[in-house]
């Protein structure tokens, strides 16, 4: 169930090892950020924990792996395919599960989306089998920076997450749709009283978040291995990111994702097995310092 890159060697010592550890941490942080946005948005707008988010992530990753041969090995096209494929799935989940549970106890939403996750994971096992698959690094070269070999692919992931951050900032601050969503995050009732159909925008946000989760899943495939249960672990980590960053706080999510990615990498350097547990310890500390009373 390990989430740390399998090429990561905890045994390295010295300053060079630390630089590559930090680089790995930033890569994990970038992936966590891309995945967590959707969770943070649905959490912030609908107060729903969407367990099906993990399913969308898994589907995105599997779609990339199986479509790669059809696109003649073009990684970019396969990533785009992985992202597009989840749009109808996300729409169906939103339309037939989440929308039917508006206004009801949120516990039912948690259980229902978990049920969707169970069904989807079992379907993945059915289609692709339970044995882990892997995809090789699409670029394969590494740049030497400060005497450390850094794979270019990871640097691209970090750059891409920064790009996503900038685009989302612009989207939420400059466009009407983005502003409506921000207003809905702040006060749903007041936004609705202005005559705005908030739910329509929320379902748009839901699909956007799902696409980003699929993007994160697709980008992560070359670093880790693919298996039907890969979503469970990532979901908990992204939840920790959302909690530490603040519900529905986009910038907080960004900072928290990279901070927790570094926590994972640094812990993993000394004790590989403890890296994920450390994230939850940080989350518990964050909750003690700043309790969430929703």
């Amino acid at each position, binding site marked *: 169930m390990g989430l740390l890159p399998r090429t990561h060697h905890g045994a390295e010592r010295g300053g060079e090892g630390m630089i590559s550890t930090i680089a790995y941490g930033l890569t994990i942080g970038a992936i966590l950020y891309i995945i967590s946005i959707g969770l943070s948005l649905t959490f912030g707008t609908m107060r729903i924990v969407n367990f099906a988010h993990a399913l969308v992530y898994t589907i995105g990753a599997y779609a990339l792996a199986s479509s790669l041969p059809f696109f003649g090995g073009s990684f970019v096209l396969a990533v785009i395919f992985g992202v597009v494929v989840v749009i109808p799935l996300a729409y169906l989940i939103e339309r037939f599960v989440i929308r039917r549970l508006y206004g009801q106890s949120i516990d039912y939403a948690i*259980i*229902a989306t978990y*049920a*969707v*996750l169970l069904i989807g994971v079992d379907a993945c096992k059915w289609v692709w089998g339970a044995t882990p698959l892997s995809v090789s690094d699409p670029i394969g070269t590494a740049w030497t920076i400060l005497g450390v070999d850094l794979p270019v692919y990871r640097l691209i992931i970090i750059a891409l997450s920064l790009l996503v951050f900038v685009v989302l900032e612009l989207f939420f601050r400059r466009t009407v749709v983005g502003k409506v969503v921000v207003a809905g995050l702040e006060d749903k009732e007041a936004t609705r009283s202005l005559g705005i159909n908030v739910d329509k925008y929320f379902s748009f946000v839901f699909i956007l978040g799902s696409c980003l989760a699929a993007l994160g899943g697709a980008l992560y495939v070359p670093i880790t291995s693919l298996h039907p249960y890969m979503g469970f672990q990532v979901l*908990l980590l992204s939840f920790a990111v959302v909690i530490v960053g603040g519900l529905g706080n986009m910038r907080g999510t960004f900072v928290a994702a990279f901070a927790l990615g570094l926590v994972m990498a640094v812990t993993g350097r000394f004790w590989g097995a*403890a890296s994920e*547990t450390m994230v939850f310890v940080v989350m*518990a500390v964050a*909750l003690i310092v700043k309790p969430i009373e929703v």
Partner: protein
Amino acid sequence: MQSSLFDTLKKFDLLIIAAIFLLFIPLLTMQRTTDFMIFCVFVLAFDLIYGYMGRLSFGHMLYLGVGAYAAALSAEHLSGNPFLALLVAVVAGGAVGLLLGPIIVRTTGACFALINLAFNQVGFFLALIALAEWTGGEDGMAAFYDSVWIFDFGDPKVIFGFTLLCLIAVVYFVRRLTDSPFGILLRTIKENETRAKFLGYNTFFYKLLAFVLSTSLAALAGALTMLNYTYATPSFIDPTRNVEVIFACLIGGAGNVYGALAGGIGYMVISNYLPNYIQRWEMFLGIALLVVVFRFQAGIWGYCRALITARKGEVKA
């Protein structure tokens, strides 16, 4: 006439519960029936938090696992006395609840569910890897219990009888607890915590108390599982198994002792027999959960109760 019949039945409910489980023995093996009862204790512990206090925990396996491992470690390091093991397990469950409770009970809704899940994950990691020296890691650990007086827990009949007594005691305890002012306050917290605070109650304290009681009961279920199987594995603390108790609680009907029992039995029957016929068990479980959430929220007991009230109405008319 009908209503008085139900009232009479309700007076002897503990006896009826015992009779139902005794009737299960010829249908199943004795160890299976014991398993059913242990699961019912666990569902009751979960229901105290979910059904009565309205907080969905997605990590109750942690407390079950703590109980199981505590009972196993007690046999290995302290003494083979099974009652000491039970005591150690319940105290350990309570201690974990007391340690994590102040962080957990301040949250509600989704946060409550997922923080429990996160701690469950930490516990799973501790049992599987970090403390593998003591817990045996993936291989698990065996524990052997001495026989004390007439209680020789190697005998399935003895463990059946003892578990039945435990279950009856827990049912009685939970019913008394939830009928008491404390139980009413818990339901007030479920409905509207701000009002409970308005009335001057320190809701944090009561929530913590309910949480610790629930974790102790879950640990008791874990310790009983240890007595029944004498072997602890990381599957006792596996966070992906949390859905079992949630499903059991939902199909039975949350917030009711009889509902929890009906759900516990119902889930165990389904999970023991259906996987023999259905290949895709997780998919079935998911679909069943969706059906329960969308069409059957009141559960088995809620359905029965609606039937009874309808009958009562007819009698009066």
